[in-house]
């Protein structure tokens, strides 16, 4: 039984000029202790998927349908009170922008202890002491001083460490990391990735990481889900996905990014392009959403949505003409 099972997730938004189908029929699972990555370009629905799991979609403009089963409970059917007991406690989240995801007018210590007091019933003093421990764990120097400081007194990398401490404070079973290193400089990204590696082995939480960076995926994920235009197009263990991608989009994505060191191996040349651009999520797409950009396209692709088929026990592809 997987820890998290997302079934047929659809998240749509109402906009002034039509319905935006950000996520349109996505299913996947996350097992305990496993690291799963969702990759895709902007607008593919990967972040909305992550936010849908914790029901962080504003109800006034967005609707979520499908089933999100976490340890046997369907989160979408849960009363909001019980949902809040899960948020930050059993499932927690890290966001992309460390500069804006901490509250600028509250101290680091307050923001950390708030979670601990809420979910673990600690007193203010206990929570503060635990906060200092958490900051030490994520490698923040002088934690006792830092708890009294405000976010603007910390650098971006430090803030992302605080976010990680915040997410891990209640020892969650699932950690959702939405582009955790995208906003960081490459040397700071290396630090955060190193930290996540350490925590992955020590904390034992399952991680669902959302990213557009294939390098990050290769480094941290066990299993990868590729999304395109609101749909899942491929899923495979990380090595299989990189060695033998089966969806033309995955293949295109892997080839489009230049690799560091390529010039030395004389393996460089023109970058392979994926022609055209991502379709607007406001369009109604009949058939495969990648059809308009795909070199292997056939008439069938334009008419029938390809279903996700197992190509082997752990490799799934949604393509009529898989590679």
């Amino acid at each position, binding site marked *: 039984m997987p820890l998290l099972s997302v079934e047929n997730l659809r998240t749509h938004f109402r906009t002034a000029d039509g319905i935006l189908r950000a996520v349109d029929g996505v299913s996947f699972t996350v097992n305990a202790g496993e690291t799963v990555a969702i990759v895709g370009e902007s607008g593919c629905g990967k972040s909305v998927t992550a936010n849908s799991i914790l029901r962080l979609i504003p109800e006034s403009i967005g609707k979520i349908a499908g089933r999100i089963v976490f340890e046997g409970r369907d989160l979408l059917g849960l009363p909001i009170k019980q949902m809040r007991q899960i948020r930050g406690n059993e499932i927690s989240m890290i966001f992309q922008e460390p500069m804006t995801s901490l509250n600028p007018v509250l101290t680091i210590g307050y923001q950390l202890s708030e979670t601990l007091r809420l979910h673990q019933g600690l007193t203010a003093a206990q929570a503060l002491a635990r906060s200092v421990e958490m900051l030490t764990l994520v490698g923040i120097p002088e934690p006792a001083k830092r708890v009294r400081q405000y976010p603007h007194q910390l650098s971006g990398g430090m803030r992302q460490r605080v976010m990680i401490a915040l997410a891990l404070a209640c020892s969650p079973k699932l950690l959702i990391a939405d582009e955790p290193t995208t906003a960081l400089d490459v040397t700071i990204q*290396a630090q955060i990735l190193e930290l996540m590696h350490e925590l992955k082995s020590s904390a034992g939480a399952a991680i669902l990481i959302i990213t557009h960076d294939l390098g990050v995926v290769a480094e941290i994920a066990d299993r990868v889900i590729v999304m395109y235009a609101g749909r899942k197009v491929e899923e495979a263990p990380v090595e299989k996905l990189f060695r033998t991608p089966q969806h033309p989009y995955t293949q295109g994505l892997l080839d489009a990014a230049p690799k560091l060191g390529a010039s030395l191996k004389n393996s460089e040349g023109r970058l392979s392009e994926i022609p055209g651009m991502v379709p607007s999520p406001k369009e109604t797409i009949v058939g495969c959403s990648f059809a308009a950009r795909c070199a292997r396209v056939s008439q069938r692709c334009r008419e029938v949505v390809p279903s996700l088929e197992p190509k082997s026990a752990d490799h799934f592809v949604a393509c009529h003409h898989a590679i």
Partner: protein
Amino acid sequence: MDTTPILNVKNLKKHFSVKGQTVKAVDGISLHIMPGETLSLVGESGCGKSTAGRAILRLIDLTEGEVELNGQRIDQMSARQLRPLRRHIQPVFQDPYSSLNPRMRLRDILAEPIRNFGLSPNAADIESRIRQLLEMVRLPADAAGRLPHEFSGGQRQRISIARALAAEPSLIVCDEAVSALDVSVKAQIVNLLQDLQKELGLALLFISHDLAIVEHMTHRVAVMYLGRIVEIASRERIFGSPQHPYTLALLSSVPVPEPGRTIDRIVLKGDVPSPMNPPKGCHFHTRCPFALDRCKTDEPKLRSVAPGQHVACHLHDLPPSENPIAQRTAVSEVSS
């Protein structure tokens, strides 16, 4: 081969004053670009690479230093003197959304430099030139009558490139020009830039933090850290045999999309210090894994360590057997 550089920058400094403190955003950099050549300026945010680009474009005044465009000093010129010369050096910026005036049609955006520099004698000529420009950046001819908001990010970046080309420049400054784009679109724009460079013999100053793209695009690379160039060399030397510990760390930090490969990574400790109060001596000594005592006091000067490779690092005063950099193999050759 032509031996006059298109751009020659000597000891460029740009200091800002923020709340009574001086921020040395760019603190004495020198570089040159030959016709048809690509020089990349790389570094992390706040290293001063964008400020350097803006100063070279004379979008901001420089504090000190010389900028020579086609052998002519432009750093002291008045706005009026400079205006006709701006034709030779054109920018392409990062953000495809704010780079284009939302209220101007494409035709007017492209006609502006053509008219300003008097590059076409009459309206019909301008119209055909606009059509030609759109074709060059692979946009449909009917795009001319449309407004920027009707285009996607990648297309807007094509428009920005077309606007730059409209001035018939010899040098384009690309300030993170492809950084905001998605992978698949990024490849399109990178290819376009390379094609245009070949076709028109353009020189590029390619400012970027994306090392893989830089490696793909460039002839030479200058690595900046806290307002200074710490290493400048040909692409082969920078990516094959980097000689500054910062370059080494930077390259080793890039996650490589090959699962299972372990990287001999140098994870730098701490953060980039504030440019308001940079460390004394070598700016990098606070994070350098190999720092010597003298790094804390003496500022290292750029010097040649190999043909076409200049490095500002005291480690190269050590005998090769004691130099930890020389002991390391290039990052790209390390794989399991």
